[in-house]
């Protein structure tokens, strides 16, 4: 069943506006909805006219919202690793641990992992209290990286697990042949080996996220009536195709904002298309958001959700 929606697209196309309107329409139709912003530059609270933080906050009777604090997730994850490192090393190998971890904060991939673990937290801890979860995503580059992580990291973890199994088999054989060997003092069973346990744990978490993205999520791409946002939507579609993630709808936002010629690429034209007019008067309240005509997209989402 598809109970999670992601809105992707180039920066500035209206992801936050459309995902808020989508969540609002779902909530006003009687479903219990949580909308979470994954964008490091949050503006979900501004769109919903409610001050938000990292915990779900009531916006309307059936609608809660939160803005994921990525900095806090990075800190939490590094603090956890730092604590385990200090606990497990019998000699003080890591004298400059704190400076090492403060550098890791800026290591490539850390922010994407923080997004991933934040999604996991929303999915496992918060989502059971709601009928549907809607994610407002960051601009394309970061979104595609976190969507691909469960698949790419999953391959790494699978290979490392195989190598670890070989190591444990060798240790078992040596211990059987020569119980006096120093190897006998190390872990020989999968159940006792903490590295194997950790690899299995990471693998299970990544696999659950891969399932969430590929089987439980409804992916929409948002474009504006201009070529740049369409080109980026094509790149999103290609990348999602490569990862085996189905893209199900294209939302053309701000229709009528300009008279310049443009066309929707044929690759996107095959998707279900939803048009949203540019509102010259602007959006000044949640009721204005609710009027932008989200019903057909919500109906498709509910229909797709029931399929599996």
């Amino acid at each position, binding site marked *: 069943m598809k109970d999670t929606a992601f809105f992707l697209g180039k920066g500035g196309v209206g992801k936050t506006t459309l995902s808020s309107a989508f969540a609002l329409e779902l909530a006003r139709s009687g479903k219990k909805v949580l909308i979470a912003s994954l964008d490091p530059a949050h503006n979900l609270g501004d769109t919903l006219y409610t001050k938000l933080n990292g915990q779900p906050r009531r916006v309307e009777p059936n609608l809660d919202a939160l803005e994921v604090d990525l900095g806090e997730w990075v800190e939490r*994850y*590094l603090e956890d*690793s730092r604590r*385990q*490192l200090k*606990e*497990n*090393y*019998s000699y003080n*190998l890591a004298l400059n641990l704190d400076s090492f971890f403060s550098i*890791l904060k800026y*290591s*490539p*991939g*850390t922010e*994407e*992992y923080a997004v991933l673990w934040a999604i996991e937290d929303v999915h496992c801890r918060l989502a059971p209290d709601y009928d549907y979860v809607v994610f407002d995503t960051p601009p394309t580059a970061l979104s595609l990286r976190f969507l691909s*992580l469960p698949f*790419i*990291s999953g391959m*790494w*973890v699978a290979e*490392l697990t195989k*190598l*670890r199994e*070989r*190591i444990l088999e*060798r*240790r078992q*054989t*040596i211990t059987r*042949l*020569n119980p*006096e*060997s120093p*190897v006998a003092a*190390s872990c020989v069973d999968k159940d006792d080996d*903490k*590295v194997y346990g*950790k*690899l299995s744990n*990471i693998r299970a978490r990544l696999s659950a996220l891969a399932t969430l993205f590929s089987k439980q999520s409804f992916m929409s791409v948002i474009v504006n009536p201009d070529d740049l946002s369409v080109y980026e939507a094509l790149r999103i579609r290609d990348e999602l195709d490569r990862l085996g993630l189905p893209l199900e709808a294209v939302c053309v936002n701000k229709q009528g904002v300009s008279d310049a010629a443009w066309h929707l690429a044929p690759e996107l034209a095959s998707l279900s298309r939803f048009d949203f007019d540019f509102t010259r008067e602007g959006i000044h309240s949640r009721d204005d958001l609710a009027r932008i005509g989200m019903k057909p997209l919500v109906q498709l989402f509910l229909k797709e959700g029931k399929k599996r």
Partner: protein
Amino acid sequence: MPRKLKHILKQALLTAVQVNRDKATGIMEFELKELENIFALLILGGFAGLPSPPAPIAVELLPYMERELTILLARTDLSQDPLATLMDMLQVD
């Protein structure tokens, strides 16, 4: 006296058995250390420019890799003279 002799003979036999066991598993232990070294290199290779899993995965595994890190450091010393290491393992004087 015969009891003491029996004890000495038993100890000699046990030592001989242990020496043979050590010889039998020596090459396997070397191979195991190589595997553990490769495992550590794969996890930490990013720091030396080798392809490696994303840093956050390496950091999650790091707290449990004390043995592998010790082997990795020992191997770094041995890598200066790999031929001598090989000859030593094959017991060539």
